[in-house]
């Protein structure tokens, strides 16, 4: 590596770090600006706001974000008059700072830009959809639709351009979609893609077996025919590149034999699990509460305690009735083993045991536990949290916000005139609309947000750390994105709109889940009353739900 390479490399890394921290930086400035707008900013934090803008104006340009730098510099200049500014001027500036924060908080542009210009390891962060076309109007639509669903889509004009652009030396997250009259792909490109682990999807005008066979020969992951069902394509791409990283299984070992426990722990950790050991059964309940394991490995014979009794006692707690318990014991007597299983255990491992066997028994059971838990928590049609789980998540968020003195917003969303969609286009098409909105919510909201299907066409979202203004912007953004989606039914194109009501922690003295739901619902009804395709934040003067009810057409 030459000295110049080292310089370039160091600068690249520094830029990457800068970009990674940027969302947190601008989010903080947004918070300060908001407080300033409400005249609740002391001089020290006002100074912090000025200084924050000043820093960005000096640093953004160094890292290639000239636009950001110029805007920050302009705002810093404007804000310098400080507390003396009149109300209107202040409001405008607050809005501008919020807009800047919003843009750099949610924009993935900077990630995309860093990939293009720097070719850093960050390439793997966002999966890319490459859309290879021979040109034409319908492909423009596809490009737009895919972007609406939140994908990063790069367009490639023709095979030659694709061969130049898609050169990989290592694994890459992404999908190549070929939208052509017929199935075709060069062998060299197919090989390069397969090395990088990039799946290929064909969209063809020709609906025959020969085309499918050709696609299979080229190793395609899927084959679609025009006219295209975009929702199906979106779901497939999701399945191909979606986030499948599973959290490691969590295993708690309760055994008084330290040497043995540590050996088991080591074996399970090497198999990729998270493992904790507790040697004193007195602490069992506490450890379960804290660690929340997927599975408990429980010794049967411990001084003063019997594992079978412990298991039976655990089953008295509703919370732990479903926890898989696997006994560890030297007990070889079959009858006594059966008795132990009777008392609430799920399996029996006789010591000494091979590490390989231990890992496989534990993994199978933990996996089943996870799947059950997911099934219980998720809505079948959309994969979002179900009614019960989203309400639990809301209750948990209320507790957290009280404890940490943090803020959050809750949103009730509903598809406008959904009954008409079902009546006009059938329930299958209605389900497509519901799934499209679910997908939009999943991809457009942040990873820390929680989204659930609350009822038929009603959704509920929890946005931690987000106050009402931010939630309103977020919802309006979603509202516009949803209205822009086009659905097709037997050649007819239609679109839908949504309305949303928001309740935020700043509305209430004490935080209760029921109150959030009630107020968000009340605001939603007000939004419906205001003509739909509308977002309203709850406030005290909203009409009660019963007054706002507008017949059954939601």
């Amino acid at each position, binding site marked *: 590596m030459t000295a110049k390479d080292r310089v370039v490399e160091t600068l690249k890394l520094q830029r990457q770090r800068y970009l990674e921290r940027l969302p947190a930086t601008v989010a903080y400035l947004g918070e300060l600006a908001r407080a300033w707008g409400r005249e609740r900013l002391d001089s020290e934090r006002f100074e912090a706001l000025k200084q924050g803008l*000043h820093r960005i104006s000096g640093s953004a340009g160094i890292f290639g974000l000239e636009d950001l730098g110029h805007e920050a510099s302009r705002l810093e200049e404007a804000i310098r008059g400080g507390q003396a500014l009149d109300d209107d001027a202040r409001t405008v500036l607050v809005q501008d700072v919020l807009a800047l924060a919003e843009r750099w908080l949610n924009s993935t542009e900077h990630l995309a830009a860093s990939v293009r210009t720097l070719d850093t390891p960050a390439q793997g962060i966002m999966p890319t959809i490459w859309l290879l076309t021979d040109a034409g109007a319908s492909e423009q639509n596809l490009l737009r639709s895919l972007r609406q669903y939140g994908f990063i889509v790069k367009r490639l004009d023709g095979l030659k351009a694709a061969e130049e652009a898609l050169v990989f030396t290592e694994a890459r997250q992404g999908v190549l979609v070929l939208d052509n009259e017929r199935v075709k792909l060069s062998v060299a490109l197919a090989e390069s893609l397969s090395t990088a682990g990039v799946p290929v999807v064909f969209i063809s005008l020709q609906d025959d077996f020969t085309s499918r066979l050709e696609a299979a020969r080229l190793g395609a992951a899927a084959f679609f025919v025009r006219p295209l069902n975009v929702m199906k394509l979106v779901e497939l791409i999701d399945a191909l590149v979606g986030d499948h990283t599973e959290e490691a299984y969590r295993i708690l070992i309760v055994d008084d034999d330290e040497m043995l426990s540590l050996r088991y722990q080591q074996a399970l950790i090497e198999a990729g699990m998270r493992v904790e050991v507790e040697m004193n059964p007195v602490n069992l309940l506490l450890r379960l509460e804290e660690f929340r394991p997927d599975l408990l490995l429980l010794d049967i014979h411990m001084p003063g305690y019997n594992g079978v009794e412990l298991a039976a006692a655990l089953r008295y707690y509703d919370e732990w009735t479903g926890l898989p318990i696997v006994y560890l014991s030297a007990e070889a007597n079959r009858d006594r083993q059966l008795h132990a299983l009777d008392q609430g255990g799920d399996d029996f491992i006789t010591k000494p045991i091979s590490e390989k066997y231990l890992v496989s028994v534990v993994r199978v059971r933990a996996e089943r536990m996870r799947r059950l838990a997911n099934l219980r928590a998720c809505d079948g049609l959309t994969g979002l949290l179900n009614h019960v789980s989203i309400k639990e998540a809301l209750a948990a968020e209320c507790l957290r916000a009280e404890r940490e003195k943090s803020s959050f917003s809750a949103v009730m969303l509903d598809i406008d005139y959904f009954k008409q969609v079902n009546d006009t286009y059938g329930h299958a098409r209605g389900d497509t609309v519901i799934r499209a909105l679910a997908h939009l919510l999943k991809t457009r909201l942040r990873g820390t947000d929680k989204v659930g299907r609350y009822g038929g066409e009603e959704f509920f979202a929890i946005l931690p750390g987000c106050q009402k203004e931010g939630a309103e912007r977020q919802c309006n953004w979603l509202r516009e994105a949803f209205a822009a989606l086009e659905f097709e039914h037997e050649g007819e194109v239609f679109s839908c709109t949504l309305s949303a009501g928001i309740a935020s922690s700043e509305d209430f003295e004490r935080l209760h889940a029921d109150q959030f739901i009630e107020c968000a619902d009340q605001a939603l009804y007000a939004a419906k009353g205001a003509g739909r395709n509308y977002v309203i934040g709850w406030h005290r003067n909203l009409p009660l739900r019963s007054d706002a009810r507008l017949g059954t057409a939601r």
Partner: protein
Amino acid sequence: MMELERVLYVEDDEDIRVVAQVALEMVGGLNVKVCSSGDQALAEAQAFAPHLILLDVMMPGLDGPMTLAGLRKIPALANTPVLFMTAKVQPSEVAHYKSLGAVDVLSKPFDPMCLADQLKSIWSGLHDG
């Protein structure tokens, strides 16, 4: 003429500090001492005996001008040329900073590939004139 070797650089923003350090050390081949605050600079500058001092203007605690005033009280550094670096460089401000005793004002953002050359040319300008 003595060649520019040792530069004392005071900057509170870590991102900019790292980039500037790379720009001065790796690109420019200079010997750089980096301080993250004015206080640190006042405590450690004399031992480093810099040829040139580069100060960020806006820093929490001791800002650039205050740091400059403090440095001037250290006899060994009373005549060491000082440059300011800041994000907003308007002619009136440049004049103001120069009246405080700075030899020049550099603007942020800077180009990391050129920063060292800029310093060197200011340095030789001082000695030619």
